[in-house]
């Protein structure tokens, strides 16, 4: 990227994975080697992805900084993601970033980790999960609770199998009532309900919650009931953004700009913000 803060890197799509209906993962490579060697990011940061002529859209980097590639996972939903979804392997896209703060993984050493994700919100968390799994020795128990509307809507199906097979990961998957298939072996029920049933210990544990606003709203009280302090609950907000560096004004919530001060916040921090996210 030049010193022009709006100029995207040009990335080439190396590999496309169809994750779920309308959900795709793109593995991206810099077209410029020098830019590739200078690029660094940390888990939790996001980027602006562009399809020239359509515009830019915002989402987290879904791959771990411990890997030598950049991946994004998105659902075809609006104008730009609609255009993004028409791209093929070998095509290029624009990429600006990384922006925002990070999950303080360094501070979580020696702790148990409880990941709770819903739907298309697993991608921003997958970055953190793989980061922690790639440095597995730093953490104690790792539990992942992941829910989607239907079995078909679960993303990263291959990785879910991989995590399920690992003895050092406790994976629980669930689908909304009615979303199960006859051969579904996971849980049936909403994420907060399943979490309540699992009743994980809050002892020396960090909870990372990512999901649609409604899931977050009902999951936080369950964690509180289980004894998790507000400072030990992390989430990432996804306010609408355009610039990524605190100028365009969209993601302003109280005195906070989600793009600069976030997107990662603790429940304790959220409690001091107006509920405009």
């Amino acid at each position, binding site marked *: 990227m030049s010193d022009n803060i709006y*100029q995207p890197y040009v990335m080439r799509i190396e590999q496309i994975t169809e994750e779920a209906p309308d959900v795709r993962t793109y593995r991206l490579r810099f077209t410029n080697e020098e830019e590739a060697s200078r690029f660094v990011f940390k888990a939790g940061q996001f980027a602006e992805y*562009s399809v020239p002529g*359509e*515009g830019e859209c915002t989402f987290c980097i879904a791959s771990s900084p411990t890997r030598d590639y950049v991946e994004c996972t998105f659902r075809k*939903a609006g104008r730009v993601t609609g255009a993004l979804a028409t791209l093929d392997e070998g095509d290029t896209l624009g990429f600006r970033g990384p922006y925002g703060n990070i999950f303080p993984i360094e501070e979580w050493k020696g702790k148990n980790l409880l990941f709770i994700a819903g739907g298309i919100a697993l991608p921003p968390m997958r970055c953190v999960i793989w980061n922690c799994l790639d440095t597995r020795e730093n953490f104690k128990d790792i539990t992942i609770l992941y829910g989607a509307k239907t079995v078909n809507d679960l993303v990263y199906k291959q990785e879910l199998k991989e995590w399920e097979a690992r003895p050092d990961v406790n994976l629980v998957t669930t689908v909304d009532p009615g979303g199960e298939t006859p051969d579904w072996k996971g849980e049936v029920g909403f994420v907060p309900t399943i979490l309540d049933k699992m009743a994980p210990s809050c002892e020396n544990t960090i909870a990372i919650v990512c999901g649609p606003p409604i899931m977050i709203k009902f999951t936080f009280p369950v964690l509180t009931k289980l004894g998790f302090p507000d400072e030990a609950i992390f989430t990432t907000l996804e*306010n609408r953004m*355009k610039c990524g*560096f605190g100028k365009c004004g969209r993601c*302003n919530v109280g005195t906070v700009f989600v793009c600069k001060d976030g997107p990662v916040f603790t429940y304790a921090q959220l409690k001091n913000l107006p509920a405009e996210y």
Partner: protein
Amino acid sequence: MKLIKKEDLPGLYGYLASAGKKIFAPVRKNGMVSFSFTSAFEEIEMSYIQTKLSAKAAAFPKIEKLMKYTIQKEGQSYEPYDVEKFPGIVVWGAHPCDAAAFHPLNAVFTWETHDKYFTRRLENLLIIGLSCTSHDEFCFCTSVGVHPGDTKGSDIQLTPLPGGDYLAEIITTKGEAVAAAVPALFSPAPGLNKEELVTSVEKRFDHEALHAKINGMFDHPVWKEQALRCIGCGACTYVCPICSCFDIQDEGGIFGGLRYRCWDSCGFGHFTIHTSGHNPRESQDTRWRQRLMHKFSYQPQRQEVFGCVGCGRCSRNCPVDMNISEHLTQIMAV
């Protein structure tokens, strides 16, 4: 303090124009005075209370072309516009409110990340301020820390004299360079008290007290009441000299086009709506609250500037007669 005669203003204009500057000045057109680019001194309206649009476009244009993009078989490329080629602009005849507004704008565009499109345009600006000798019922600059004779932001400040000539204060080195280039236009000023020449705007509230009060008013019912008649047209934000929220859009075809940014407004529901349909600021009262809280609570806390200079444009131009100084006065009273 110097004096510039009425008949010498065209000479000053001519010098600046011949130096290659584009001159952005109040122009009366269709019964409305607005800042526009001019080609002759005669187009300029020197006696006006307030322009329709502010002078902010001189550094933050309504539409800023950010870059060109091209799409070829081998891939895409982006070519940003060269900020070094931006022209020098003279903002001619900006009242103290408009001149002061560039500072809070700059605070946003240099907040940690520097936006060179803005900073370069600002560096290239020469601001000729114009003290106010009259005001109307919408003006409330003195309530937000600005004064009708303030020189903050101006490089040269003109204050109209009863006979038609102007007192000229040379404020900055940029201003000194101009005065030094055309010394014949400036003569020593007669001994006058500038304060007696400028208008006196009644102070309706204290902005520091407002800041202290509004910080804790997020959940107050006053926002709902005030915003009942707001139609969400966004006019207040477009005419505001400090509102700086913008959108980024692409325009073009399948082989190429341009990416630009344009003014946007927190008054619009679409400003914050998520792709999912969830909107953190769903109703007009929450958007009205955001506008005032941002200007008087959040901006002072984060960027140490007030988001208002009391120009009164938002009230003058509101199609449903919302009046910001009345609303702020009410907020101080509740």
